[in-house]
């Protein structure tokens, strides 16, 4: 793909519309899912099955007044929501939806995604700091300690996968896993992963970290509404809040994309080379996988109550980090042996 201005524009438009559409309709899925798990019908009033709810919510958000409270650090206050949305958009540049459909395959794609994920944590800190609100401040302190704690096992687990595929390029990582479900990184009994029995465990670690990194329940200590009003976005109204919201859902999509690429074979067909997904260039498999993961995200959110901050940090420092470190060493050793 030649890197002309036109191509870039098209890629940007597709990325933004994909993110926007996902953010809007994941909210709908979330509410429907919450309804079904609690034996309610969920949104029903606007359009069939409440499908018109997201655009109506969007219009409502946009028509609200963008209020900037007195005494806030104005520049920082206004930068924070953009900082929440922007890294999420940037991450989509390097995510391969299929062999050919990728905006720009970068050799250090994994690194880039994690760099922008860290920037997402930054936006929470900035929002909490700039709001001049004690609840926002506490919330951002929590969110940052959480992000730092969970980024470590996330990165270590990713390094494990990177060692297996020998590349930081997301396309290469998926290409290692092509050829059927038995080639995916999640399964231990293959030579490429060195018969490492802990591969499913590292998948679980990555999954838990992705839930925690996206600040979702049961790890949503940052916006614990029973303690901190609304956390870091307490003072935000209108589209300021809307951007935080969209950024959050975009992060969920990126998290599930990452899980799919690193462990579930990306766009590869689960039943070997026989099946290309109908109509699309195998993008269908990729989307199917990420939406199944998102379904599990929603499932988890509406099953478990919020943890405590101690429980959250204990889980990371006492369990996830030691186990992922051990797994890293084990994988390195096994890869050397086999």
């Amino acid at each position, binding site marked *: 793909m030649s890197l002309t201005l036109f191509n870039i524009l098209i890629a940007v438009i597709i990325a933004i519309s994909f993110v926007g559409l996902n953010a809007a309709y994941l909210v709908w899925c979330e509410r429907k899912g919450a309804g*079904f798990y609690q034996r309610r019908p969920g949104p029903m009033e606007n359009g069939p099955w409440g499908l018109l709810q997201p655009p109506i919510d969007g219009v409502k958000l946009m028509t609200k007044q963008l209020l900037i409270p007195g005494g806030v650090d104005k520049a920082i206050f206004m930068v924070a929501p953009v900082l929440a949305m922007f890294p999420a958009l940037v991450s989509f540049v390097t995510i391969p939806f299929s062999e050919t459909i990728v905006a720009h395959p970068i050799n250090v794609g994994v690194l880039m995604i994690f760099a922008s994920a860290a920037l997402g944590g930054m936006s929470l800190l900035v929002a909490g700091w700039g709001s001049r609100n004690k609840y926002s401040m506490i919330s951002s302190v929590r969110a940052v300690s959480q992000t730092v704690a969970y980024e470590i096992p996330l990165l270590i687990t990713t390094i494990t996968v990177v060692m297996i595929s020998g590349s930081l390029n997301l396309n290469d990582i998926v290409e290692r896993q092509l050829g059927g479900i038995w080639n995916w990184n999640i399964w231990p009994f293959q030579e490429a992963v060195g018969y490492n029995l802990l591969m499913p465990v590292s998948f679980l670690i990555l999954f838990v970290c992705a839930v925690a990194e996206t600040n979702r329940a049961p790890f949503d200590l940052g916006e614990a509404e029973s303690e901190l009003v609304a956390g870091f976005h307490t003072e935000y109204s209108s589209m300021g809040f809307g951007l935080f919201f969209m950024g959050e859902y975009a992060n969920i999509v990126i998290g599930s994309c990452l899980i799919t690429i690193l462990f579930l074979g990306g766009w590869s067909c689960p039943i070997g080379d026989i099946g290309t997904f109908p109509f699309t260039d195998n993008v269908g498999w990729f989307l199917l996988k990420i939406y199944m993961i998102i379904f599990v995200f929603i*499932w*988890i959110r509406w099953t478990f109550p919020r943890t405590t901050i101690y429980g959250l940090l204990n889980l990371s420092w006492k369990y996830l980090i030691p186990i992922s470190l051990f797994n890293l060493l084990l994988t390195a050793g096994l890869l050397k042996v086999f």
Partner: protein
Amino acid sequence: MGGYFTELFTGAWSLLEGMWVTLKEFPRKPVTLSYPHESVKMCRRFRGHIELIGDEEGKPNCVVCMMCQRSCPSGCISLHGEKPEGSKKKVLTGYILDFTTCSLCGSCVESCNFNALQFSNEYNLASTRKEDFVMDLLKRLEEQQK
């Protein structure tokens, strides 16, 4: 060190059990009602505001003996009737219930000897205007007969 792994495994297992519980509920039918579109059928003995009982022709059983009006401790019932030409009985011409002061004590229903009053099952009563609770029960009966 033994406790470390037991805690990890029992914790993970309990999480899985919890997820299984919610997953079982997922495909089931909702137990809630979409309120404005459908509502619960109120049980027969619910004491809503009072209403008149009509006979087969739809005329009220009431003979305007004024017992209900007299027995009402809050004075929220006012009714009047007239005797048409050539008739021995009085005919009810208006029955106004001021529900804003009614305490649903039921004295009126108890004092009625002509099976003309009963508690309705109406419970969807919400309004922003006080006048909506001054009810013309005779009109209500006519509308019910339609």
